[in-house]
């Protein structure tokens, strides 16, 4: 055993010598191969790991090898110095590649090893998304080098932006200052969000003169540069003045400049539908029907096209549509949630819709859910059979979108539902 140990040590020393020589001669592949064998024979060979680190093909690899060295000799000066440099280089490289979070990891470790390095703190500041951290790291850099003008300017910019964000909020319509951003301006009483459309359209408290001034201002702005803000605030002002059609026009223009804003699109859709309904019904603005309450509708149909048709029609009204292509999926969905209404196809594979209707009506958690039959069959007896099974309504395919919406919203109305239940 001892002979073998001596042989191994001798072999290791020879390999190390040869590896270092190859490295010095610039033959990196041979050096790496020889030094790898060295650390394989003796994992505690700090010199072997250090030389391997100097030959590493990537920053991560060098860091790993250097950690090996420091695990063996924690105060190894060369390794510490080398690691400080590699961590900074790697942090900068990753930061430049755009991965600020990973860059921060390297740079924070570099800052622990080398707290007096100005570059480490500056790069750390550049990776931060929080103004407080950026400011703290810039302060560290400035403490090391108080004469760095760029750091001073950077710090000033951060402080200015911070103070601006905390400064007084102004109403976008009347421009009055407020303590904080609010859904209703305390000064002109205009509603400033589209969250509650009833509140904004039915707003009788708003200062009309202030709103007309806002219209003038934003109209001019929109003429000069058709940006999102001008059209959005024109829309808000018109809504507060109960001029829905004009509001929709401008909100739609705003939406086209910010197509990713799905919430805005939904609200515009609701507004337009509401306006449209009031025009066709000849209802005066003050007597308009309330906006629809979003409902959850379960559609059970084995036709993917019909499921999609129903989803498109109802989702643009703000409803949520859950789809099932047969009895098993329908029962699974009904176990997960209780919809506000079920749209049910009659002709399904393996069973018929009447049986599913019976199941829905006999289960405790779903017996109150209105079921509307959706069928290509228009026969009198089909409709009677549907009623007998517990369905409240019957829509014949092909259906017009307005018919589907009217039926669904009418049966989802709680007052209608309770009337139905009383009748039964």
């Amino acid at each position, binding site marked *: 055993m001892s002979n073998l140990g001596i042989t191994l040590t001798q072999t290791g020393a020879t390999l190390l010598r040869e590896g270092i020589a190859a490295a010095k001669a610039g033959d990196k592949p041979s050096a790496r191969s020889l030094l790898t064998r060295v650390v394989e024979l003796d994992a505690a060979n700090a010199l072997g790991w250090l030389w391997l680190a100097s030959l590493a093909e990537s920053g991560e690899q060098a860091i790993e090898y250097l950690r090996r060295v420091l695990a063996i000799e924690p105060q190894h000066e060369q390794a510490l110095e080398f690691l400080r440099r590699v961590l900074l280089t790697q942090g900068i490289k990753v930061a430049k590649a755009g991965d600020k979070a990973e860059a921060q990891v390297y740079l924070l470790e570099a800052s622990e090893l080398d707290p007096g390095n100005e570059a480490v703190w500056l790069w750390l500041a550049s990776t931060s998304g929080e103004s407080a951290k950026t400011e703290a790291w810039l302060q560290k850099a400035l403490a090391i080098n108080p004469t760095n003008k760029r750091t001073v300017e950077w710090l000033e910019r951060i402080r200015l932006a911070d103070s601006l964000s905390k400064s007084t909020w102004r109403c976008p319509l009347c421009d009055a200052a407020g303590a904080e951003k609010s859904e209703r301006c305390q000064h002109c009483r205009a509603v400033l969000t589209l969250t509650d459309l009833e509140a904004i359209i039915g707003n009788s408290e708003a200062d009309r003169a202030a709103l007309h001034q806002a219209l003038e201002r934003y109209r001019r702005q929109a003429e000069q540069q058709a940006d999102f803000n001008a059209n959005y605030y024109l829309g808000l002002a018109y809504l507060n003045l109960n001029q829905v059609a004009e509001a929709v026009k401008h909100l739609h223009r705003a939406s086209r400049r910010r197509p990713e804003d799905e919430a805005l699109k939904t609200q515009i*859709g609701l507004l337009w539908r509401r306006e449209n309904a009031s025009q066709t019904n000849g209802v005066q603005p003050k007597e308009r029907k309330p906006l629809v309450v979003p409902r959850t509708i379960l559609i059970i149909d084995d036709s993917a096209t*019909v499921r999609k048709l129903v989803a498109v029609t109802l989702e643009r009204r703000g409803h949520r549509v859950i789809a099932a292509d047969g009895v098993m999926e329908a029962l699974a969905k009904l176990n997960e949630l209780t919809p506000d209404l079920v749209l049910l196809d009659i002709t399904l594979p393996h069973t018929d819709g009447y049986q599913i209707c019976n199941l829905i009506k006999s289960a405790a958690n779903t017996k109150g859910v209105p079921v509307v039959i959706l069928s290509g069959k228009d026969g009198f007896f089909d409709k009677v059979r549907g009623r007998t099974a517990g369905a409240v309504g019957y829509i014949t395919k092909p259906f017009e979108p307005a018919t589907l919406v009217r039926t669904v919203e009418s049966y989802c109305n709680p007052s209608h539902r309770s009337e139905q239940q009383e009748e039964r």
Partner: protein
Amino acid sequence: MGAVRRDKETKYTPINGVPYEEMTEVERDFELEDRLIFLVAQLEQLMIRLMEQDPPQPAAALELLVEMVNRTAALTEILPSVKDDDVTLLRSLEDASRIHPLVHLLPVENNRLLIETIVGAGHSRMGYLSASPTSLHQVCQGLVLVLRDHFALFETLFYSPTMQDRWKGLYHVFVSDLLYAVTDVQPSHSVKRGNEARG
């Protein structure tokens, strides 16, 4: 074609009663979407009739597909946003015939496929379709392409990219259902789809 389109404005009755010229872009989009939803709902019912045939009858299947194409072509004639030279049935058929050459033989008159001529067994050009599974299949696939061509035109009529995407999503589902349905329309097809009559 021009003659068919000339009275487009007189044929067009807005769903919501507002004249087309007075509608905002949003209103026009919603109205177009309503019409397209109803069109697909109608086409879906024709497709169900096609799927209910067990085994599929070539003549009836062709008749249903032709009916689908004609209904879709009819819609292009009344939509004010479709320009006369945007799409014609003839051009769509020409495009489809590059992939399915037999489609070129389908008789067209006044922007409509002539159902009687196509499914009439006595017609010199088309009568052989019922006897040739490959030819029949090619024509069916070609007609689906013609439908797709029209659907793609409708897609360009929306102002809103969201509604454009929604329409695309809807017609892709329908076309994929329809392609599945026409797969069975071959006299030689021996595998039946099972009794999945839908309604």
